[in-house]
């Protein structure tokens, strides 16, 4: 039961000019599942490890439940962490692995066994308590790592890409189980992943990092609908948003020769920004094919038919260069490579100022 607060927390590695995590300000509510997401090198793992006490906070501070833990060693923070490769102690059985932290805390043997059994029951690990990690499957090891964390009932769970070593199917299943578990335990969880699908499906809120700088923190829906900048817009959503550089002419934006309708608000906001080259983004599901003739003309180059939905890559001529727009179609598609099509925008459009901020 805990709130976590990063206050301008930075991590500067010796010999490096740019901080791996740069003045991170982040409030995590009690019982919240917050996902830190970003490409590799974005500082997401470093931020987590700073909270764990495994990385020195070179400036700023970190608080758990209003207690400043910035300088405390990991063991004094009452946190539990699940590592990407699980970090199970190979010489100990599952039960010993799970009870290790309790043993360090001098919990009595009986109580330890009791708590381990309880955690094993929650995670369906009871038959495996006497096995060594090397005799377990990947999924079972992952659950042991989880068990080792929940056995201690810590204030905060820290998860460092805990699902990335599982195969695709198991990953989806475990993802749901993990969300369910967090909900039941109602314990604050900070979850690091590079997979934006994981971030969107799991997080109560998602914090997007790039180059050590927090880009946006919001609910998955908010992040998807109103990305604060071009990076977030491009990073969140699969397939990614169609993002093109567009030169402003007479206060208007044209996509492949077709002027885009903007709301009054956006037009006004864009008018307040100087510069010529803006970014214009449209999500694949907000592009439609039309037979009426007016719209963006293009040629289908790739068809990804997934059965329940289809994604079509369409080559268009935009400002003198060939660009590809991805169009989403519900259900199966009848279009094939080489078909000539016309596209219209049917939904919200995102406009980004020359410096990448959303207008």
């Amino acid at each position, binding site marked *: 039961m805990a709130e976590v607060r990063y206050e301008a927390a930075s991590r500067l590695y010796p010999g490096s000019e740019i901080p791996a995590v740069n003045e991170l300000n982040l409030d995590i509510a009690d019982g919240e599942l917050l996902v830190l997401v970003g490409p590799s090198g974005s500082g997401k793992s470093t931020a987590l490890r700073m909270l764990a006490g495994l990385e*020195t*906070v*070179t*400036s700023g*501070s970190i608080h758990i439940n209003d207690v400043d833990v*910035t*300088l405390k060693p990991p063991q004094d923070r009452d946190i539990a962490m699940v590592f990407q490769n699980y970090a199970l102690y190979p010489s100990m059985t599952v039960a010993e692995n799970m009870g290790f932290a309790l043993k360090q805390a001098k919990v009595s043997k009986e109580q330890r066994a009791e708590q381990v059994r309880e955690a094993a029951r929650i995670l369906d690990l009871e038959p495996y308590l006497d096995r060594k990690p090397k005799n377990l499957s990947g999924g079972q090891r992952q659950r042991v790592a989880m068990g080792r964390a929940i056995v201690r009932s810590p204030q905060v769970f820290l998860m460092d890409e805990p699902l990335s070593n599982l195969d695709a199917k198991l990953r989806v299943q475990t993802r749901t189980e993990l969300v369910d578990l967090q909900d039941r335990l109602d314990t604050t969880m900070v979850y690091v992943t590079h997979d934006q699908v994981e971030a969107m499906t799991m997080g109560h809120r998602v914090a997007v990092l790039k180059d050590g700088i927090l880009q946006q923190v919001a609910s998955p829906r908010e992040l998807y609908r109103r990305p604060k900048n071009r990076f977030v817009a491009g990073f969140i959503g699969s397939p990614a948003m169609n993002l093109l550089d567009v030169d402003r002419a007479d206060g208007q934006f044209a996509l492949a020769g077709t002027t885009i309708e903007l709301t009054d608000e956006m037009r006004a906001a864009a008018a307040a920004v100087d510069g010529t080259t803006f970014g214009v983004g449209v999500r694949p599901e907000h592009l439609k094919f039309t037979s009426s003739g007016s719209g963006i003309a293009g040629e289908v180059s790739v068809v990804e038919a997934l059965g329940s939905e289809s994604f079509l890559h369409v080559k268009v001529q935009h400002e003198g260069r060939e660009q590809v727009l991805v169009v989403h179609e519900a259900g199966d598609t009848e279009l094939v490579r080489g078909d000539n099509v016309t596209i219209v925008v049917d939904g919200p459009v995102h406009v980004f100022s020359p410096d990448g901020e959303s207008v």
Partner: protein
Amino acid sequence: MATAVISHEEEVRRLQRREGWRRRLPILPALLFTIAVTQIPFLFTLFYSLTDWRIDTVDPRQFIGVENYTSLSGDKFFLDAAWVTVKMTVMAVLGSLIVGTGLALLLDRKFFGQGFIRTLLITPFLVMPVVAGFMWKTQMFNATFGVINWVLNTVGIDSIEFATKYPLASVVVVLIWQWSPFMMLIILAGLQGQDASVLEAARVDGATSWGTFRQITFPQLRPFLELGTLLGAIYLIQVYDHIEVIVGGQPGAKNLPFYIAQRSIGGGNRFGLASSYSIIVVIASIIIANIGLRVLSGLLEDDS
């Protein structure tokens, strides 16, 4: 607020300093011990080498500068010993490397009794050098009851007193016998650590056995061969036991370590002069070591 920030930074620095000591402290005992037993005596040797010190006379040691060194170029015994050292080390290292590679290639296959034969093959490395020396000298090389000469006699060749007639070759044969298993172990580890999928890819691409070996296995083995050469050279440059036992003081096979011991603590008592020989050996070793360490740093590159 401002003071709080400063104290935090100070605290971070203090913790980092303490962490730094915690990291260094465990090394110190080993480091200090090593310095005390190897580096400091070496400085003494350096000092001795600039004197005319003999411990069998009451004369105090006199500082004579580099005189010991300038006399080396005309010192026939020294030059002989140096040349023997070079020949012995090169022949023994190369020989054991070649034999060891052959053995490793033969062993890296499935056949009946593989484990047993490997056990037999590594045994020479475990044998006490003194014993190896005696065994070869008295029971293999010996002219009257040595097995090699017995075999030669049965095919009609007269007995040869190997240790007297070919002292250097005799010592080198025993060294190769002892060190091939060591090389074999290192190269075997290299062969068994190979990535099978790469070899399969080569086979799919139509490479012959020899082509696969030359183009894929050999480059992968290179660090292991280099490691074997380096470790072998470290030990073989200072061979003493085999020489003492097989050929004793015979000139043709007296290397520098043996000669130095003879001239100083072995009864020669010329501490000043022998020290200058030692320094020469050390310098030569440093040159080899520098080349070797460059190889080793290559090995360590990818695991920071």
